[in-house]
């Protein structure tokens, strides 16, 4: 018996060869995606509905307090804490970053120690230390180290509540800022430094004109994160009874018992100002993106 196993002739469905330009593309369909969209949409609408109809939100109370003088003043204090904390924090941070990048092992170690210490201590603990500074050092004096002093200040007078808070926030911020700046500087191509050095450009100018503007590209997104997190972090200062936004809101709902709408007042301000910061970030980043294709 002959074992021939020819494959059965495949049904030849000869289609007329259409020219490539006439071919129609049929996109893949994603039915489950539509189910997910529908489910999410229902949840969102329910949430929005709740926001409007649930009397617990007390939107009238929210509206009454959103722009009262107490709240506006508190917003201003929060902004001041953020601004000064950021400015001082990054100023110190830049110095610490360059100390860590320095060729001198002593400076490097001090910078490392600083970052290590201030990243290890919880902000709230540190703030309480600063607040109690007067207890540790009754007076600060300016003079020859370990020698006679020229001036001295009463610590409590010098380090008021607000300054203690700014100092605490800034020193904490500086440790993070230092690492961010250092990372940015390290990300600049070494060839840039060589080119600048080979052109005889003075050292400080190399840093200001060549290195920092390029480092800014990688510093900015991280720095913006830090500023925003500091901005919200100022609420921690409420433990020191400073009249920033969160503290003031607590005071008000302590008096009138309207906790939820007042928390919403604070929330709305935090969201509003964070949004403003993000817009600023966008434009600053665009400025430093000059000459780049990304």
């Amino acid at each position, binding site marked *: 018996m002959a074992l021939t196993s020819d494959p059965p002739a495949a049904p030849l469905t000869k289609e007329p060869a259409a020219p490539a330009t006439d071919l129609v593309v049929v996109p893949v369909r994603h039915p489950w995606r539509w189910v997910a969209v529908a489910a999410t949409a229902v949840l969102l609408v329910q949430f929005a509905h709740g926001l409007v109809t649930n009397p617990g939100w007390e939107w009238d109370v929210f509206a009454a307090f959103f722009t009262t003088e107490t709240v506006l003043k508190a917003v201003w204090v929060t902004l001041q804490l953020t601004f000064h904390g950021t400015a001082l924090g990054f100023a110190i941070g830049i110095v610490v970053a360059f100390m860590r990048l320095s060729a001198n092992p002593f400076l490097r170690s001090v910078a490392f120690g600083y970052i290590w210490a201030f990243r290890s201590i919880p902000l709230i603990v540190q703030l309480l230390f600063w607040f109690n500074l007067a207890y540790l050092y009754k007076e600060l004096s300016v003079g020859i180290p370990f020698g006679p002093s020229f001036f001295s200040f009463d610590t409590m007078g010098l380090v008021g509540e607000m300054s203690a808070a700014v100092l605490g926030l800034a020193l904490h911020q500086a440790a993070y800022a230092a690492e961010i700046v250092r990372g940015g500087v390290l990300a600049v*191509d070494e*060839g*840039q430094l*060589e*080119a*600048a*050095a*080979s*052109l*005889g*450009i*003075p*050292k400080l*100018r190399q840093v200001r*004109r*060549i290195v920092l*503007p*390029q480092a800014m590209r990688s510093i900015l997104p991280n720095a913006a994160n830090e500023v925003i997190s500091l901005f919200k972090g100022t609420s921690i200062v409420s433990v020191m009874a400073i009249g920033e936004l969160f503290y003031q809101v607590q005071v008000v709902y302590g008096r009138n018992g309207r906790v939820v709408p007042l928390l919403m007042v604070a929330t709305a301000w935090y969201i509003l100002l964070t949004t403003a910061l993000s817009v600023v970030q966008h434009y600053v980043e665009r400025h*430093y993106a*000059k*000459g*780049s*294709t990304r």
Partner: protein
Amino acid sequence: MSSATTVEKTPAGTTAKVEIRAVHKNFGPLHVLRGIDLDVRAGEVTVVLGPSGSGKSTLLRTINHLEKVDGGTVSVDGVLVGYRRSGNKLYELREREILKQRTRIGFVFQNFHLFPHLTVLENVVEAPVSALKRPRKEAEAAARRLLERVGLADKAESYPKQLSGGQQQRVAIARALALEPGLLLFDEPTSALDPELVGEVLDVIKDLAATGTTMIVVTHEIGFAREVADTVVFMDEGRIVEQGPPADVLDSPRHERTRAFLSKVL
């Protein structure tokens, strides 16, 4: 060599001679330069050839003190680079003084290293303004003339990323020229370029050679060496194996290693 005790000033725009004496350089256990002696006369073009890793870049970088030597001396126009000599002692110069010395020495890198966040014009103007304290207006006018000379007058306001490799390298050359250096160092200026862009950069360098600026060029372009070089130097394993006029070194090399190298690149 004059035993200068002060940093002499050579007027800008004049061309410089180079004397390299017994230069040694180590990178950790690696002995990269093993006693280099080289004289480059003012206004001459020296082309340095040699296999990869032979120390060509390192030698070039010691000339403007981007690399510190471990032994020997380099002087440009009789002035020690990186040191001040007093009697038998060499005193290291401060960074500020070294930076000042470098304004007399132009360096062109293989990968251009233009400042990407500055326009072409700002790239060229930066060093004259900040290192030589030229008035900006004056420096810009000079920069525009230089850009015209390298054929890029219309690119002054562009950013480096918007230019081709060949154009970027020509900007880098203009940037080096803006200091009116007496000496120009080129480290494989065309190695990072697409073949069709090599010519435009070599043409600019040839023009410069004709103006009588002292130049030391590391390159693998043998044709360029033959055409432009006054002296060809062949390096291998941290030593200068042979040197002489291009006709001698390229056409009738005396050393086996030179011959082996040339047979590979030609």
